[in-house]
């Protein structure tokens, strides 16, 4: 007997995969689905046939990862307990913003996936090539705060920046506004690259105006490294599933090397949370209108991201969009100090109307 878990419980033959799948035999004590999935990795040390079996089993008899995640639903069953643990530990809790600066707002609402969501995990060793990104401790599929930020910034660019490419002054203003919201652009280096290079190139005449605006605001001789006013939170999803893409040979039209991947399936639920702290406006007179303008712009882009563009990997194939309506009681737009509001909304349309009313009230 070895004292190493992965050596002692390693897979050597098909029967081992079956026992691991059904939690029987020498694997009776290994109840945790994530631990069982990681044990499937030991199939890499065997042969190609056993590896395929550890992934999906056989044509009509699912085994291995497919059975644990998809056919038997073991993983989803265990996730119910883990999600209640998150609640108990107050990891997935509603944020208290009462002590934040005036004009701060919190926007939260429930998400129900209309199409599956994919986000590839960076785990180095997994039985299939495309594992779903999961929380490291609990193994719950998650959309990370960084992913929300990246997707929303991209959508803000599509919705608010790109339409202004022919108006350099406006383009620079919107770009500056986005910098305040999201922080310094990626690629803002001596030799611009990536995001910055793209924005410089689509509206070259706005480049200098934008840079001057930022440097003037922060009294600096170069673009400073800034943090944004938006704070994102991870979304924990309540289900996981498995899918396959099977590219077909152009000559034989038969499937070639199926590609398996984990997804959060349609119908899965999670909570989206976004916090805004207007620290760049603290001493400004027209803080109310600036805060509400930012809120309106963010809400418009959120709607586009959630319903049209998607926020997932493979989003150009339709992945990662949500249902248009949600549970009203689970939504919350909380603005503190002076504007002081707590608004419930069932969809983006109601949210946009509420923001418009607030803008009217505070003119």
């Amino acid at each position, binding site marked *: 007997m070895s004292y190493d878990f992965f050596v002692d419980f390693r897979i050597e033959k098909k029967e081992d995969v079956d026992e691991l799948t059904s939690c029987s035999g020498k694997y009776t004590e290994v109840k945790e689905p994530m631990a069982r999935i990681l044990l499937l990795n030991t199939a890499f040390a065997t042969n190609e046939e056993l590896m395929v079996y550890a992934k*999906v089993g056989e*044509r009509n008899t699912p085994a291995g990862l*497919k059975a644990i995640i*998809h*056919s038997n639903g073991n993983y989803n069953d265990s996730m119910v307990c883990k999600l209640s643990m998150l609640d108990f530990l107050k990891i997935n809790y509603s944020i208290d913003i009462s002590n934040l600066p005036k004009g701060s707002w919190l926007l939260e609402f429930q998400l129900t996936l*209309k*199409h599956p969501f994919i986000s590839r995990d960076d785990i180095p060793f997994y039985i299939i090539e495309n594992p779903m990104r999961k929380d490291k401790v609990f193994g719950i599929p998650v959309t990370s705060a960084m992913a929300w930020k990246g997707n929303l910034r991209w959508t803000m660019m*599509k*919705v608010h920046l*790109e339409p202004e490419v022919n108006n350099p002054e406006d383009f620079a203003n919107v770009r500056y506004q986005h910098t305040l919201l999201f922080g310094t652009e990626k690629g803002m280096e001596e030799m611009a690259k990536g995001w910055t290079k793209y924005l410089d*190139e*689509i509206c070259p005449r706005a480049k200098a105006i934008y840079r001057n605006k930022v440097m003037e605001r922060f009294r600096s001789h170069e673009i400073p490294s800034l943090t944004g006013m938006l704070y994102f939170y991870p979304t924990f999803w309540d289900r996981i599933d*498995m*899918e*396959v*893409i*099977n*590219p*077909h*040979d*152009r*000559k*034989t*039209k*038969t499937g*070639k090397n199926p590609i*398996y991947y984990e997804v959060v399936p349609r119908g899965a639920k999670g909570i989206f949370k976004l916090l805004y702290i207007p620290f760049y406006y603290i001493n400004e007179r027209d803080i109310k209108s600036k805060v509400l303008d930012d809120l309106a712009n963010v809400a418009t882009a959120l709607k*586009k991201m959630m319903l*049209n*563009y*998607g926020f997932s990997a*493979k*989003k*150009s*194939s*339709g992945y990662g*969009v949500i249902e248009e309506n949600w549970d009203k009681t689970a939504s919350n737009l909380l603005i503190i100090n002076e504007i002081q509001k707590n608004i419930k909304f069932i969809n983006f349309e109601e949210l946009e109307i509420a923001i418009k009313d607030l803008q009217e009230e505070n003119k």
Partner: protein
Amino acid sequence: MNESLLLLKLITPIWTGDIDLKSDFIRSTGIIGSLRLWTEVILRGMDYYICDPTSDNRCPEKINNDLAYCPACLIFGATGIRRLFRMEINGIDIKKVFEGEVINIRPSGRNRGWYLGNGLIGNAALRVTTLDREGDDILLILPLSIAAKWGAIGAKTQHGYGVVSLVNEQQLNIETFINSLEKILGEERLKRLNIEKKRRSTDNNTLPNLREMFFAKVQFSVNEANWWEEIDGIKQALEPKNKKGEIDQKLKEKNYQILKAWYNSGSVPIAPAIKNWLRYGDGRTLWQTQNNIINHHIENWLFGTARDKKSVSKINISCAYLKNDNQWEFRIWGWIPSQENPSGFNKQSFLENLKNSLNGKGSINIPWTNLLGNHIGEHKLLDWHEYNSPKDTKTPNESNLKKFLQSLLEG
């Protein structure tokens, strides 16, 4: 952002398989894959080099320090370059054609027959959002329109699945498509993206190409509502026998419910009956060698095989679908390459024979009553389309591909 919403009516069941080998909802990846295939076919017809995205020669190719992509990859994306558009498909009133796993349709003389699963029927909304400032949705809509008019989309099209029609169809012009294509292939754009256009020409001749395809539509009328019960294969499924040769009443009832539900959805699986005749019946004379030898190599190459060197049928036959009142229609189309044909097979002679038989003028009469029953008649070849061919019924010998494509678009 340019967004367009296309409404699709699913005329025959559509199949986009999942990890359980079922088709419970329409998966956009299956539809995008299929549309890419139609785009590849059109672009190869236009003499562009298009890679095989499933092969090791797929894009990108590294040329000096730049990555090079073929036009199809510039539209549909590949490693290092994003797709020009986002496509989302949502089913509307979608339901399975029947309940149950599969039905076995076994025409006369067959031991195993065809196993057909419960595809989906109803309507679908296709939302196309262009993600690139230079992208135009016509690059996707035109191949879809040609597939909707003459072929099918999704998987298992060779078994009759995936005939769709565009409900809110717009007038499409081939020149607009070409202009949009030239725009995304423009030197200036490629330079800005630091990429090049792939120009290799090797292995381009052995992949599906519009110039080597044929498309046909056949219509017939029916004079009784239960005509479908006599179709070869369906007839046997409605009288299933067990090993003792007795009628299996339970299976009989199950099969009847399945096939009745299929018929009620507006289509009937006739592909097994026609394929059986073409491959194993008198239809063999249309493709066999001059000295009437049954060449299994040709047979497997033309109609597909799951054994040894797997291949799919080069001929697709759709389900029959209701056109109006008592008029039904089905499609036959396919890609028969001019190169790498098995010895003894003559492509032109086969297509000539097939067209003549469908037209009722060939040396072989298609035994319609044996295949589709006694209650059908007035069967006629409505259209035959083939590039630069005298057989084409609308634009015979049309060697201008633009004009040929425009004629396909006109239906």
